[in-house]
């Protein structure tokens, strides 16, 4: 990369912003050299959080710090966006339609103090670095989705920011391009020495690109941790659905878990008291008759709906408990899994991951 010696520091934010009825109150630390994904349903405050960090909106209370520099303390200090060493990639890229690709990239370099000529020279070098030299004189309207995404990332990186914010960077791409760009983005982000914050609503994107996940719901951070931790121990139904696992709530006593929503499961865990438990959809087996085997838990459930996911079928079962179960298309046929049909579900006690309720 053409970036010179760059100071890198962690991003530390603890802030509150109210907008009408909505209140965003979030605290998180994003480490330099790591990719932190911010996930959450629509309206959870993800975009507002990014805008606050970028300096496009001030915080009302709290503080925002990058390395040892305070960017906003909600009172006297507010470093405006154009003075923050933070780059941003917008969801629909926002490449300037009246400038060609080279000038789009040179724009930031020149804004940060370079002469027009030096900025263009730097822009050419960055384009060559990204293998995009052929696009230099094109207008944004003449770019494909993938090209525009690359140029938007390049435009942000060309200002050699200490932190990079990406707002749903792949959301505007078609499926095929998305897969390709996800790999490329992953490489670029790994090379990036500073803090990278990625807002996404796609679990796969978070899993592939991020080291750390921060879940926002209703303006609050409901969970924050390594990708593995969050995937293994979701703290809310949203996170569980995001990670594609079943989340059950209840309390355990002597190896039995009594579920809040009705039903009881035998678990292989010594955790007692209020607990959450996850069951992967692929860990559940489906039978026509009461199963006899090593599975300690079996119960009758009714098919509510079916959804095709890749080469599998995800069946929504209602029962005690109700679960999402992944089966093959063949099983759907042989077991007659149509909405309204009944079947037996079985799950081994060892496949139920029990952890203290967060």
């Amino acid at each position: 990369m053409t970036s010179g010696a760059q100071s890198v520091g962690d991003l530390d934010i603890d802030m509150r912003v109210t907008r009408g009825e909505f209140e965003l109150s979030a605290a998180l630390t994003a480490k330099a050299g790591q990719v932190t994904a911010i996930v959450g349903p629509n309206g959870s405050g993800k975009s507002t959080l990014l805008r606050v960090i970028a300096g496009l909106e001030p915080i009302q209370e709290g503080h925002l710090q990058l390395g040892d520099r305070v960017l906003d303390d909600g009172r006297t200090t507010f470093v405006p966006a154009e003075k923050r060493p933070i780059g941003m990639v917008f969801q629909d890229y926002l490449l300037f339609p009246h400038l060609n690709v080279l000038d789009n990239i040179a724009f930031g370099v020149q804004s940060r103090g370079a002469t027009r000529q030096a900025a263009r020279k730097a822009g050419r070098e960055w384009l060559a670095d990204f293998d995009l030299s052929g696009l230099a004189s094109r207008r944004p309207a003449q770019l494909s989705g993938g090209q525009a995404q690359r140029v938007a990332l390049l435009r942000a990186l060309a200002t050699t920011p200490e932190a990079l914010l990406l707002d749903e960077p792949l959301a505007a791409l078609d499926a095929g391009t998305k897969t390709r760009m996800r790999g490329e983005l992953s490489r670029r982000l790994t090379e990036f020495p500073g803090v990278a914050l990625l807002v996404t609503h796609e679990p796969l994107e978070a899993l592939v690109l991020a080291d750390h996940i921060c879940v926002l719901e209703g303006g609050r951070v409901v969970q924050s941790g390594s990708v593995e931790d969050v995937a293994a121990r979701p703290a809310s139904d949203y996170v569980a659905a995001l990670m594609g696992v079943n989340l059950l709530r209840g309390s355990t006593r002597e190896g039995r878990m009594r579920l809040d929503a009705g039903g009881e499961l035998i678990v292989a865990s010594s955790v007692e008291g209020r607990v959450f438990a996850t069951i992967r959809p692929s860990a559940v087996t489906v039978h026509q008759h009461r199963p006899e085997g090593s599975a300690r838990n079996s119960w009758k459930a009714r098919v509510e709906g079916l959804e095709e996911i890749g080469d599998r079928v995800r069946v929504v079962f209602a029962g005690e408990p109700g679960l999402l179960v992944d089966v093959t298309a063949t099983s759907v046929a042989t077991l007659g899994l149509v909405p309204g049909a009944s079947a037996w579900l079985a799950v081994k006690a060892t496949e139920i991951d029990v952890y203290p309720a967060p």
Partner: protein
Amino acid sequence: MTTGVMTRRDRRRTHRTPWIIIPLAIVAMLFLVIPLFGLLADTPWTRLPDLLTREVTVTALRLSLITSLAATGIAVVFGVPLAWLLARIDFPGRPVVRALVLLPLVLPPVVGGTALLTALGRRGIIGQPLEELTGFSLPFTTAGVVLAEAFVAMPFLVLTVEGALRGMDRRFEDAAMTLGASRMRVLTRVTLPLIAPGLIAGALLAWARALGEFGATITFAGNFPGRTQTMPLAIYTLLDTDRDAAIALSVVLLATCIFILLILRDQWLHPGGRR
């Protein structure tokens, strides 16, 4: 010959249209168009070069060009910030301010001229101190013509640019800021280029309005050849004495307006500009 062209153009799909619409529409169209053809029919085409190079017409042409361009310049320099204020800054009484600012759009120009005269005249609230301080008096001067034209033209620019500013995607400005652009740089390199189609359309409308200004000018600046007699004033004056010269000047104004319309049509067909 001409009506033949019009009816052929008018032959569109007419089903579902109540029959009364067609004849009334044709009357309206003829009413708007025939006078212009009358003007063209009466134009002494062969003598046009001679008529337009006479001193009185050349003087009026030059004066009109200078004053209307100056008025357009004033409208742009002050009107764009005003449009910005109306579009972007939420201050108390904004609807009232907008209404007052746009009043010259519907105000009879002669009232505008009278208003300018009372405010900027020798005994006006601005005119009197101005003259006492600088010895300079605006009424009946070329500068007065420029002011009168700017007064009636600026609202066109403000209205158009305000619409463009409201319609633009402000997130481009956000993007520019995250790239380190100062407010001024965002304005000159992002905002103004993005609203350029609206700005150009507004400037053209303002220019056309300034070029045709009559009532406010003659009231505030008078009708002195070479100093305040712009084309419309010259046309009005010449109609009594030299009808052909008046018609020749009218044709020039008509041609200019058609030219402006053609440009504006292009602007409005591609409101987003070339992308």
